[in-house]
């Protein structure tokens, strides 16, 4: 399996703290890869080191097969959307897009043609020659996104791309990311929103306090973190059944479902589900559901990172 990005043991230390601590990860080519972590975990610092915006203290980076520190030109094949967005307010929309495309080595004529295509695609045709400052925030985000993808990069690096987007624009972004994947591109994005990661990513890496907590394909991570939780539902309310669930020694705990019709339980480790099923079948009420609960990425995240790590974000300090 080839990798669009390989990070080996990179670290970044600032005066008072370590932002990234001996982090390694591998992003398969053509995949959508999520870097997850609480605020201040070191996601942005990692991405910035990948793009050589900040210089890493140690470790190796192979970006599309090249070290960006030694060979900056490789960055022309990368599209970067930073967490905090910004455009030249006084420039007109088309010019600003063409400018950023030219910085990535796109010829002026091609840049103008592609800019027009993307402007129309994103529904910004009316504002083509308007100044950026006259655009709404959502529209500015679209313009910024165009500047990220216009030069047809092989790798998209998106830092918290969904933050600040309204649901409609989130949908637009999701479609574009999926489109990029279909075209064989690799997409890396960081987020602390687990839903997007769950919907989009094939691979994730969870980091906290600058260290990797776990990484791998989402499916494997789910399987490895299945846990022992089940839901139980009966055909109709039955006091005897409820009494049994509450009293059973097979469960570590049992609690009422959200809508009060069923139960959520966690099995004692080593319990054979067949024994539980038999006991349930002997009850005086028909069983309608006995199923293992797939833990959500959010649950895995919270469990692995731990509540303690979800501290409030460190104040941003100078990044050297």
């Amino acid at each position, binding site marked *: 399996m080839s990798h669009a990005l390989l990070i080996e043991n990179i670290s970044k230390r600032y005066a008072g703290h370590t932002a990234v601590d001996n982090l390694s990860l591998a992003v398969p080519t053509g995949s959508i890869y999520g870097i997850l972590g609480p605020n201040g975990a070191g996601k942005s610092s990692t991405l910035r080191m990948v793009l050589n915006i900040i210089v890493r203290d140690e470790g190796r980076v192979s970006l599309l097969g090249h070290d960006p520190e030694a060979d900056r030109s490789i*960055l022309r094949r990368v599209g970067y959307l930073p967490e905090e967005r910004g455009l030249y307010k006084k420039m007109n929309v088309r010019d600003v897009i063409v400018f950023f495309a030219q910085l990535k080595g796109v010829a002026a004529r091609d840049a103008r043609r592609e800019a027009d295509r993307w402007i129309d695609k994103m529904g910004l045709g009316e504002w083509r020659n308007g100044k950026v400052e006259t655009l709404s925030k959502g529209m500015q985000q679209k313009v910024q996104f165009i500047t990220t993808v216009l030069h047809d990069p092989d790798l998209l690096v998106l830092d918290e791309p969904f933050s600040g987007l309204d649901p409609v624009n989130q949908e637009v972004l999701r479609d574009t990311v999926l489109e990029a994947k279909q075209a064989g591109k690799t997409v890396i994005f960081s987020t602390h929103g687990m839903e997007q990661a769950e919907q989009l990513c094939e691979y994730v890496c969870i980091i906290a306090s600058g260290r990797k907590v776990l990484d791998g394909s989402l499916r494997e991570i789910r399987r490895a973190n299945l846990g022992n939780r089940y839901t139980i539902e009966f055909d109709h309310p039955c006091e005897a059944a409820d009494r049994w669930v509450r009293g059973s020694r097979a469960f570590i705990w049992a609690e009422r479902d959200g809508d009060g019709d069923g139960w959520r339980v966690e099995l004692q480790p080593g319990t054979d589900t067949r024994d539980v099923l038999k006991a349930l079948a002997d009850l005086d009420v028909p069983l309608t559901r006995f199923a293992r609960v797939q833990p959500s990425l959010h649950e895995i995240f919270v469990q692995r990172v731990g509540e303690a790590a979800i501290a409030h974000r460190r104040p941003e300090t100078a990044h*050297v």
Partner: protein
Amino acid sequence: MSETLVILKREFLERVRTKSFVISTLLFPLFMAAMLLLPAQSGGGGGDRDLVLVDEAPAGVGDYLITTLSTPASEDAPSYRIERVPGRMEEVRDELARRVQAREIDGYIYLPPDILDRNEVVYRARNIANFDVLRDIRRAASQGVQAARLMREGLNLGQVMALVRPVDMQTARITSRGEEGGDADSTFAVAFVVAFLIYFMLIFYGMNVMRSVLEEKTSRIAEVLVSSVDATRLMLGKIVGVACVALFQVGIWAVFVAIALSQSDLITRRFGVPPEAFSAMRVDPWVGASLLTFFLLGFFLYAALYAALGAAVTSEQEAQQLQVVVLLPLIVPIMLMTRIAGEPLGTLATVLGMVPFSSPLSMPFRMAATSIPTAQVVGSLLLLAATALFVTWIAGKIYRVGILSTGKRPTLREVGHWMRAA
């Protein structure tokens, strides 16, 4: 196209397209034209004065005064209409005061009977702040009194007039290429204009660089830029781009000056601008080239400082407070301007001309005032170039870190740390 060129092109086009560029480019020649044309148009500079003469002095003094005042010393000098009023001062004083208040006349001159001994002329007027008028009256009265004293000793009026005829002074600069036209006033004016122009352009375009850096920093554009361009190239592209704007503007002005020079005969005839004003504008090519080099190197030096300043602060207000530090070395030569002009080869002027931070202003000023030894000019240029390179290198380090740092304003210690770290 290389990234640096893309940056440069944007900086140039985005500035040249603005209204403020067009306005400032047009306003300056208009302002200069107004400076040249207005004095010539206002008809003898000081305008007309209607004065009354109360003459109780011995015969001759009053006549002499009227003759002297009625023939203006130069085109710029005020012209006078003198009306002689009979009677003694005590009799006419109230009436004259009334006429002044009613604006029938501007004022009156009183020559007392004992003026030859008392040596005092009385001038009463609505406005006594015009030094040209005071000087003219004092001179006319003095000459009248001197003439009367000489006549008392037995000479006649004709002899006296011939004897006390004032001398005209004609001034011209001597340069290394021999004598050149241009009188003292116009030479000083050109030196003044050139130095102030450089001063304003350094500050104006330096602040342009600073604002541009600050905009990219606060709007976080810098992060995207740095993901495509090396920070040092980004800074260079920006500074060179703004320098191109400045050169473009100077180029436009040079065209205006060239047109004015080619039409100088016509302008002199139509508007009465003295020909010396034009001869002072004809700058020696070697001087012109050195001035341009001083300006460009000075621009790089200060633009780099401004770029570092823009990267180190977090808001325009902070930058305004701190820019005094950047400006101080420029303000010094401006404050000492008259001393530099008075003694362009003196120790003070020579030192200020060599110190890299003040030389971009002091040297043009000295060079416009007189011709400076070539060794000094070249030495000063080399020193300035070396300093500009060094400062750009240091500024690049501050810039590289500063544009990505957010939050609170860094302390001096932190900036020092940036310099070492980058």
